[in-house]
């Protein structure tokens, strides 16, 4: 406290001071509600913690046991497959919707925006029943539409080869979330940039590519990073809809983790699984941040 005037002397010191003042709510929240539980779960990953039985230190044996767990390998593949499809599709669909619904000349715009947002807020239990019907192979809406395009639709959730794509399609129920983020981002694109581009004779596509995309790149980056973080933890759809099936084709990593934690009384193993996932997501996010230096444009650049 005595140092305070000194701190305010240089710009760098002043920035440091204000950073910690403004960030303090989160730092406090992190220390109170996150740090302890995270470290505790890492500690438990080194034990045979079962919640009930006496707990013993096991060293890294939970981690080495993962290498011999066939279903774990399957769940990693399923999760990566799902994430690779779900992130780009929900990003593209959200951006597409936002572009269309942001046009000033579109009639019923407010209504349409709300309508596309509704599925994202429906309770998943209700949504899952609707999707069971939409994805029904014979009379479901999706395959009926495909039929009119002369395509024989697959037996979505009943076929191990199509169940993951089925859940990717179902994931688009939540596209309203991305739509809203992009709508908000589009409001920040200064109109004079479009006018300038038009003066240069740019067509719609060029304007989209050279003005819109760079200007909303921070939001796109957010959607991609969060998309991967969430997709690698995909759980509820498989838990409610497919129970990991058919034939383990939707056995996602966190679903498998959940079974160990709460059905098989193996919280120690589940914690080790969680930390492996944690490391994978950290590495992936780090790579995305490195790459973002090339394509994400922040204000004034």
């Amino acid at each position, binding site marked *: 406290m005595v140092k305070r005037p000194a701190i305010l002397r240089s710009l760098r010191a002043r920035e440091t001071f204000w950073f910690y003042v403004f*960030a303090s709510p989160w730092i406090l*929240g992190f220390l109170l509600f996150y740090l302890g*539980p995270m470290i505790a779960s890492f500690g438990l990953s080194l034990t045979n913690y079962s919640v009930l039985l006496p707990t013993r230190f096991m060293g890294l044996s939970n981690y080495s046991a993962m290498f011999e767990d066939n279903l774990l390998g399957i769940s990693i593949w399923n999760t990566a497959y799902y994430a690779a499809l779900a992130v780009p599709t929900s990003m593209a669909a959200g951006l597409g919707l936002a572009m269309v619904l942001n046009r000033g000349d579109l009639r019923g715009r407010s209504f349409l925006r709300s309508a596309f947002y509704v599925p994202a807020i429906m309770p998943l239990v209700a949504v899952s029943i609707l999707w069971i019907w939409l994805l029904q192979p014979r009379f479901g809406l999706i395959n009926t539409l495909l039929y009119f395009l002369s395509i024989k639709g697959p037996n979505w959730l009943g076929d191990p080869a199509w169940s993951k794509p089925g859940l990717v399609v179902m994931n688009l129920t939540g596209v309203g979330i991305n739509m809203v983020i992009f709508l*908000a981002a589009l409001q920040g694109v200064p*109109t004079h940039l479009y006018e300038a581009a038009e003066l240069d004779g740019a067509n719609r596509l060029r304007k989209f590519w050279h003005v819109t995309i760079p*200007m909303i790149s921070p*939001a796109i980056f957010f959607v991609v990073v969060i998309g991967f973080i969430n997709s690698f933890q995909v759980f509820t759809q498989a838990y409610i809809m497919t129970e990991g099936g058919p034939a383990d084709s939707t056995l996602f990593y966190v679903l498998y983790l959940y079974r160990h934690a709460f059905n098989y009384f193996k919280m120690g193993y589940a914690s080790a699984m*969680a930390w492996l996932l944690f490391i994978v997501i950290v590495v992936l996010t780090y790579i995305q941040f490195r790459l973002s230096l090339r394509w994400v444009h*922040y204000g004034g650049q």
Partner: protein
Amino acid sequence: MRYFFNSLYLAVLNVLGVLFSCSIVAYAFARYRAPGSRVLFAVLLATMMLPAHVTMIPLFLVFRALDWVDTLRPLWVPAFLGNAFFIFLLRQFFMSLPQELFDAARIDGCSEFGQYWRIMLPLSKPALTTVAIFQFQFTWNDFLGPLIYINSQDKKPLALGLQDFYKTQATVEWQQLMAASVMMVLPVVLLFFFLQRYFIEGIALTGLKG
């Protein structure tokens, strides 16, 4: 009705909480460079990367030590202490604003808090509206939190209270399920409908750089 008011109470507190805490923390991350700020940002993102299932028990013990179990506090106090998802979201929006605005304000003698309050917040209405809508929805639909922390009937929010619809083990009555869904969805849709003008208005940044 009790369920409805509990949900409303939680939703209002949570929305106010994240609007305040996340905007100011995101401002810190977007605006300042400080020793440790990059590490802290990485830590912030990392809090989203560990599945909640394995931190549930330790977190329960934290709330139990605070004697907050079977109160509504575990369901709203954390919102006032930031949320990684929204901090990251707002940071992205804040960083897309031109820095010159703030530097100019600083030279004009505007305080650091004043720059946040008078420049950043008004320019970020669409983003803040987004945060408000999302948080309202998350709180309104949150099921696992109340399931773990609430026992008393009179403290249950709507998402948990609707469980009473499931009277027996095997059969779900679909009419009840749909009725429950409408009750869950309607308030959020209404909120969205009325708040979305903030997406239409846009912000006149025209000429700032020209």
